């Protein structure tokens, strides 16, 4: 479902797919910055750094539709699959690989896209 990821990934089990509300999100806490885990209506699961490229808004709190999340702060829209801001806005946020095995959701901390997260 997500882009192919190298074998060297060490997968972390973060929970069950039901733990994430449809068209919603849950957060994985990290000292290096939280990661937002999204689930869309097709039961696809995505992982993005929980920081909006605009002014660092918490993406996990946004409204989810299709492969997009809208930031709660100033309504930037970001692609869940690629972390890219939807035009005309410009920017990106790091994405992380997700693996689903049965009910279980696994996350890898090796960044997937080549986006350099602005650290405020």
């Amino acid at each position: 479902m997500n882009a192919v990821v190298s074998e060297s990934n060490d997968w972390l089990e973060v929970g069950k797919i039901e733990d994430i509300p449809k068209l919603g999100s849950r957060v994985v806490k990290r000292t290096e910055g939280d990661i937002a885990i999204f689930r869309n209506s097709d039961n696809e699961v995505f992982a993005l750094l929980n920081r909006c490229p605009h002014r660092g808004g918490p993406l996990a709190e946004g409204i989810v539709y299709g492969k997009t999340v809208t930031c709660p702060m100033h309504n930037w829209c970001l692609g869940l699959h690629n972390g890219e801001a939807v035009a005309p806005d410009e920017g990106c946020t790091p994405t992380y690989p997700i693996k689903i095995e049965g009910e279980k959701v696994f996350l890898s901390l090796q960044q997937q896209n080549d986006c350099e997260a602005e650290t405020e």
Partner: protein
Amino acid sequence: MKEKLVLIGNGMAGMRTLEELLKLEPDMYEITVFGAEPYPNYNRILLSPVLAGEKTIDDIILNSREWYSDNNIELHTGSAVCEINRVKHTVKTEAGDEFKYDRLLIATGSNPFIIPVPGHDLDGVIGFRDIADVDAMIQSSKDHKKAIVIGGGLLGLEAANGLMIQGMDVTVVHLLDSLMERQLDAPASDLLKTSLIEKGLNFLMEAQTTEIIGDQRVEKVKFADGSELDADLVVMAVGILPNIELAKKAGLHCERGLVVSDTMQSFDPRIYAVGECVQHRGNTYGLVAPLFEQAKVCANHLATLGYGRYEGSVTSTKLKVTGIDLFSAGNFSGDEDTEDIIFQDPKAGIYKRLVLRDNKLEGAVLYGDTVDGAWFFQLMREATDISDIRQQLLFGQAHLGNSGHGGGNVAMAMSDNAQVCDCNGITKGEIVVAITSKGLFTLDDVKAHTKAAASCGSCAGLVEQLLESTLGGDYTTPECKPVCKCTDFTHDQVRAAIRDHKLTSMQMVFDYMEWRNPDGCHVCRPALNYYLISSWPEDAVDDPQSRFINERAHGNIQKDGTFSVIPRIWGGKTTPDELRAIADAAEKFDAGEVHITGGQRINLLGIKKEKLPEMWDFLGDRGLVSGHAYGKALRTVKTCVGSTWCRFGTQDSTQMGIDLERLSWGSWMPHKFKMAVSGCPRNCAEATIKDFGVVAIESGWELHIGGNGGVKVRATDMLCRVTTAEEVEEYAAAFIQVYREEARYLERTAPWLGRVGLSYVKERILDDEAGRKALHKRFLVSQEIAQNDPWKARAKGEYAHEFTPLKSLGV
């Protein structure tokens, strides 16, 4: 195998149609475009500023060649189509190549009308239509001196102005005695002439051109009265003729223009047409706005959606001559059964004329002060009944109350570095550049690209003025704006469908109304959720994932991602126990700041999301509930101390405030809803800027509605006076319920009242007693479901996932 769509005419209307089509059906057709001009589609409107040296050709390109290839559109520039074969379904170019079509779109625009007087074909005699004409004019201005512009209309004056700026000595020759007679009445047109003369233009009025003299190039122009004028450049701007030779040759039914139906189809169902070349219901148009409406409809049918209809347009015009401020729309001259409202201040160079027909605005001419042009135009298109605002109408939409943009109201008068949007710090210069360089036409375009007017919106009026002065017209598509990009239906249509067909879930709405995106988007979902739960309180289930975070987490999210907690303080009256509880909570859950709000409550800021349920439990045990400071819901009911303490108090305003808050807390609204009760007309509780305000008087209570502080201050309208407390509650509930049932989502009572009019609300609530009681009852029914404290529920573990992390990695 895809169908082939061929567009003849690489101009503004045709290309707009393709853009609209691609939005609906990105890859339904294999598209080929033929353009006679050697350029990709550019913004013809801006040829005048190019001539005036204010812009370059590159500035005004709308679709770059990359755009065509990115969208797999095959573009043939400098290649005119000379034949349409409707039997073989082919078009032939002048180069002789043939191309097949399954559907054909004709958008060949129009040609300048060249008066066929002797000498009209001499060198130096041109029209003003395309880049080639502009190049020719700029060239002449370099090595010639005298220019004559024939025609004192919009186009002629813009040409004359441009040539003058290019250093030529320009005379405008006009057949009639007043300029721009198709847009202006006599007084406005005189003001215009005076200021153009001041700018340095010469005029020869009531002069009919009979001959253009010269052997190779033009030397003189001769008039009916025998007089002559020297000229080495003659620009003919006497009008345009729909460009329909091609269509005629193909045997398509043409009159003045190529005749089309409301679906923009010609008499040959395979062949569509849009733009200046078409004639619709007897009208041809020479401005972009109506053509863009045609484009939208045509795209709708090319995409085989089949429900769009074009029903003609009202147009507005603005002369794009820097420093001249002029607006004209609709039927501005009026007739025997219209009335005029006129304001005239010749010294200040201001003239305003509004034409009314049975209390609806039908036309407007503004000169010198066009601030309210956009607003008047909107009133016209929405056919708003203006009887309630008739007195103030002429003085416009009193922007006086606006906060932000330093109260500046005349965009034209602002300097380029003046800030227009104070929320996002966008200057006039940035907006104008975006409009031209990015090819923006509507307020929404500007919002999306610059963020101006995208936050509090108080500068929207200014941005619309900038659009008009830059593009010379109003391009915001009329009244019926769709809810969002997921649908073409309006708020009112969606609301009606939900009511009339008992749609009780979001999925039902999506299916029934054929939503384009399966999940909707962040714009429509909160609106739909509101319409569902307000229309069917007992059947529809609230959808948390369709609510903004504030309403999902029942606190206001702060810039750092923490939340604020504002407990309800009934009627602004509190107790030492409540205060103690709040103080304890502030310490226990280490609030970053304790802040007395503008709503007579206390805000505990900087609370971590995970802590919220625990904190709510703590407050709940001490009798405090959610203040809904985060919701499109009943917010605060401010009161003053009233007759209990105040020497002027006439009634117990505090108790009344508490009762009103008990009555209405927890109810979801189209937008936030605020009340206040003052104990006497000194009005210490500021009841007259609230959505529903109550002012106590000796004989009872005075009820006020539709007030608003905030972005745009609006004082309430007085609804009526009542004597008993029961009446106050009944009227309040009834008013809230009409608003809940009929206002559009995110429309506060002030703009809503402005839209429907005070008389309407009076009919519903004062004149119709049975109706009022029914509204009151419906409100109480929905309150039975709505009035449970969301904090309590979540403290008891509801939606726990919302507040707990999925997993914590070593923190």
